[in-house]
């Protein structure tokens, strides 16, 4: 693997990217703008979706929960892949920063998965008449939450931070291989048992007036996710690197 490390300068960026200090400083510059963008997109999308989008012909106003439910579900699933990819990079290139990103992605992903389930349940009450339905998507989302909780639990079970990182990276990768299988199985299981009484509206063809605010919300959630991931990773960096000179200088600089 020596050629990889010696092969500058094309690999320089990769190694600089692996430096927690570089990450801390760069994201520090990006964060104000990114937060502003996230805030603007989320508030625009929310006001648009809750107040201005036309109501759904069948579901009435309860359909407006979609503007939170769908973006949260998107990021919940994407977050698992982000976590697994970060873990894989950590395993392959032994990059400390990558593990920190992986560790930070777990609580964010779990929170968003919970949010997707919660908003889904609330949406279910006026739509299906019940908070919980063993629908294929709901069940898959619940299993995704369990996968996240497993990674979190494994991470904190190890006394050695490094062993915990490696173990949860492997678990995240195993989970990634399994997610498509789980989703397909649950889909198949659901078609087998589909109760006749509950009819789910299968993704109605949305009017563009309804779809545009959803798009804004999805973009907003992506920006929000990035902000949260940066913040969690920066906190982790400060914790892990507290003995290093640059963190000490940073703290002294902040005091004056």
């Amino acid at each position, binding site marked *: 693997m020596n050629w990889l490390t010696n092969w500058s300068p094309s690999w320089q960026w990769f190694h600089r990217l692996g430096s927690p200090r570089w990450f801390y400083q760069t994201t520090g510059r990006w964060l104000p703008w990114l937060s502003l963008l996230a805030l603007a997109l989320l508030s625009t999308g929310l006001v648009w979706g809750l107040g201005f989008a036309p109501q759904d012909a069948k579901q009435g106003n309860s359909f407006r929960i979609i503007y939170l439910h769908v973006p949260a579900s998107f990021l919940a699933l994407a977050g698992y892949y982000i976590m697994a990819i970060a873990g894989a990079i950590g395993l392959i290139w032994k990059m400390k920063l990558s593990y920190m990103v992986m560790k930070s992605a777990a609580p964010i992903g779990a929170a968003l998965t919970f949010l997707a389930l919660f908003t889904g349940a609330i949406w279910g009450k006026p739509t299906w008449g019940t908070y919980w339905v063993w629908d294929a998507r709901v069940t898959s989302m619940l299993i995704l939450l369990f996968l996240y909780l497993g990674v979190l639990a494994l991470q904190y079970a190890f006394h050695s931070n490094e062993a915990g990182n490696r173990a949860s990276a*492997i678990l995240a990768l195993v989970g990634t291989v399994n997610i498509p299988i789980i989703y397909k*199985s649950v889909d198949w299981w659901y078609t087998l048992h589909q109760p006749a009484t509950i009819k789910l509206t299968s993704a109605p063809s949305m009017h563009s007036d309804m779809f545009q605010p959803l798009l804004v919300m999805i973009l907003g959630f992506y920006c929000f996710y990035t902000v949260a991931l940066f913040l969690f990773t920066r906190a982790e960096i400060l914790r892990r690197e507290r003995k290093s000179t640059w963190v000490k200088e940073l703290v002294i600089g902040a005091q004056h």
Partner: protein
Amino acid sequence: MASGFSDYLRRDLLLAYRRRGEAASPLVFFIMVSTLIPLGISPESARLAEIASGIIWVMALLATLLSTDGLFASDYQDGSLEQLLISPQMLAMPVLGKITAHWMVTGLPLTLASPLLGVMLSLPEEGYVPMVVSLALGTGCLSLIGAVGAALTVSLRKGGLLLSLLVMPLYMPVIIFGSATVQSAIDGFAWSGPLAILGAMLAAAIALCPLAAAGGLRLTSIN
């Protein structure tokens, strides 16, 4: 050529034979829990028959989960795992040997005992053959997937409960297709479809799980 596979298979079977009492506990658990079901739900055979296939599968899963904890634990404690890790041979083959032994000690007895539970829970007649076949393939999957979790948690003092948290979501496709095999036979449909998928899962698990478990052992137990 299967370097280490048969050595470790034989060794673990011998060890299990020496600790017969311990090895039999998943089977005893499997049978004992089945007496709780009629007590908890109803002794009526019509009601039991309806849920028998699912119950037997869930119990088989829990019984396998109980014993997965010990897959690498004793080797870790007596140091033989460390010896295996520093030996030059490919780690996946000995691991597969150990998993096979684990299946022969837990999954296979469960499979063979399942008709007895079928009788106790009034499983309809059409369900027996599919149940035995699906359990034979499915418990193999469960042992293989469980091995990955066991490898990741060996070095933890209280890994048992954590292990079940990690592994349970990964078990879900197996239980879906396992109980569906039995249920479709009972309902009078062709049951080869779900069984074939179960077989495909087993094949994929045989190819991937020993590698993942070996990686887990290497990366978490050396420090």
